């Protein structure tokens, strides 16, 4: 197992290097080059020359890349032109929110998706089955931001049940230690703050979790349909095991293997791509920072965030692979 992990980690190196080359090239390919991207079009030639000198842009490309990589390895991705903060600091401030949101969305998607997918498969052909299939197709077809607007309009504005934006009611005087607001609330025993933070996760979490939910329902359903026809399920039944045992040990455990991969991939995507949802819900996470960066052409932040997020994504995928290995003994040995 350890060898497996080490090998997978080693395989990451060329990918990460390639990624850094790509993003390095990206900034240089921007109209006007990095200096203009950073200084704006009003920059005088002297400004640009000074900038180029400061950042070694007058040196050969390879040297520049080496320096870029060196800084990146020290987690230095430059400074956001919009906020004046280090990109890494910005990321660390924003990421906990996105992580909380992702966890909520995935809990929502998994908590509903797996039981629903299971039920649909076991009642194959019933109305539950048909409606969950149709629902899952719709879930993927609805533009996320439209769904987000609808959710907010209905539950936050019309009904007023849930908060429709932000991460926490600003009237609650909450202490923030880790920037994981829910965790902070629990740690400081400010339970009202923690609960409020959870409530703020509900609507964006549902909007964000809809696509994973749809996919999980579909995969679970297909997978359970496959597994219930497997010989070993018949064996388990032939052994006269209790229905619950058959379901738990022989059906669900195996049916969840492909589902777990999906869950992992979707988690990776959510961590990196909540741009639309976070924007609609004014949720202070990575996604809304990315949107702000797009709107303000904050190239340093875009570059740094995309690089970090791609690394996160790759690492999550690695985790998925590893956990798949843990779940499926057949992979482990290979």
């Amino acid at each position, binding site marked *: 197992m350890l060898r497996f992990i080490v090998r997978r980690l080693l395989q990451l190196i060329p990918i990460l290097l*390639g990624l850094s080359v790509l993003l390095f090239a990206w900034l240089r390919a921007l109209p006007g080059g990095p200096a203009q991207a950073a200084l704006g079009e009003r920059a005088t030639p002297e400004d640009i020359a000074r900038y180029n000198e400061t950042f070694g842009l007058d040196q050969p490309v390879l040297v520049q890349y080496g320096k870029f990589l060196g800084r990146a390895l020290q987690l230095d991705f430059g400074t956001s032109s919009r906020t004046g903060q280090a990109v890494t600091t910005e990321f660390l401030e924003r990421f906990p929110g996105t992580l909380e949101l992702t966890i909520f969305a995935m809990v929502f998607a998994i908590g509903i998706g797996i039981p629903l997918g299971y039920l649909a498969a076991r009642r194959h052909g019933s109305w539950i089955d048909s409606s969950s299939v149709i629902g899952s*197709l*719709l879930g993927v077809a609805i533009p996320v931001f439209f769904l987000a607007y609808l959710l907010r309009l209905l539950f936050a504005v019309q009904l007023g049940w849930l908060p429709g934006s932000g991460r926490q009611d600003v009237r609650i005087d909450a202490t923030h230690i880790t920037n994981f607001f829910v965790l902070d609330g629990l740690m400081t025993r400010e339970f009202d703050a923690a609960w409020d933070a959870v409530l703020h996760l509900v609507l964006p979490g549902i909007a964000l979790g809809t696509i994973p939910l749809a996919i999980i329902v579909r995969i679970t359903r297909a997978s359970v349909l496959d597994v219930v026809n497997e010989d070993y399920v018949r064996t388990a039944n032939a052994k006269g095991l209790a229905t619950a045992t058959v379901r738990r040990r022989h059906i669900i455990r195996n049916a969840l293997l492909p589902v777990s991969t999906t869950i992992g991939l979707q988690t990776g995507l959510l961590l990196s791509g909540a741009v639309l949802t976070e924007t609609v819900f004014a949720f202070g996470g990575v996604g809304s920072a990315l*949107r702000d960066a797009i709107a303000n052409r904050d190239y340093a932040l875009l570059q740094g965030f995309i690089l970090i997020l791609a690394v996160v994504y790759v690492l999550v995928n690695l985790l998925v692979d590893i956990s798949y290995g843990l779940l499926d003994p057949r992979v482990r040995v290979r």
Partner: protein
Amino acid sequence: MTAALGSTRRDKIDELAARAGQVPAGGGGVSLARSAFRRLRRDPVAIIGAVIVVAFLLVAALAPWLAPRDPLEQALLSEVRQGSIPGSREGFPLGVDQLGRDVLSRLIYGSRQSLLIGVVSTVLGAVAGMALGVLAGAFGGWVDTVVMRFVDILLSIPGLLMAISISVLLGQNQYALMIAIAVTQVPVFARLLRGSMLSQRDSDYALAAKALGVKRSRIVLGHVLPNSLSPVIVQATLSLATAIIEAAALSFLGLGDPDISRPEWGAMLSSAQAVLSFAPMLAVYPALCIIVVALGFTLLGESLREALDPKFRR
């Protein structure tokens, strides 16, 4: 409009399908396609998907004849007030938008642009991806390694982030939008085609052709490639749905077509968010169009997948 056309069109499709089914088979590939087609015809899901897709394609093609008005004409602009938009009335069955333009005509013309973005970006992505896939699959060895590593790198950037980066890089115009979406599709097609080709390359008929001394390029282009295409076709159909949704997302992020007068569903949906509170239908109509078309392509793609998959063959 689509509902009215639906029933006659269904007959048309059946007729077409029947005629196509009678074409004499030319070879193995054709008979596979034919049997797949026959299965598709019997699949209600496929028929629903095909009807949706064909209906929208026809609407797009016939937009100038179908649309009751000029989609750019700000006909009722002078009656628009901040906070109230004239509702539907004679000549404006679905009402007008914030600038007094006929919504129905915009939706009809919008199908052109939306489908165009979907089709062009998917074709671009598929062609580029296939080129990479063929390169990797046909040559193998270090070419394969290099190409696939590159594809892995592309895959390591989540789709929307990739599309955003490329839009930012290329500036804002509809071609940039198409390219941005296309690039996100490239790795999928490349992997798919390579995988499919690898399995085809080791298949009996390819080995047999090799044993007979057929040149490698001929084997690849004449045998392996055509037989690897069915997963690509399936993926392309599914990708069309994604592309249309992704275009809407980029529009929403302000990275869409700068010529916002040109009707396009994603742009219509984004701009309607501002008036959601008092004219929600302005958002609902284009959203429905996007959802239905995406659904159509998905249904068609899924049933194609089943039809072409030997596992599902009865």
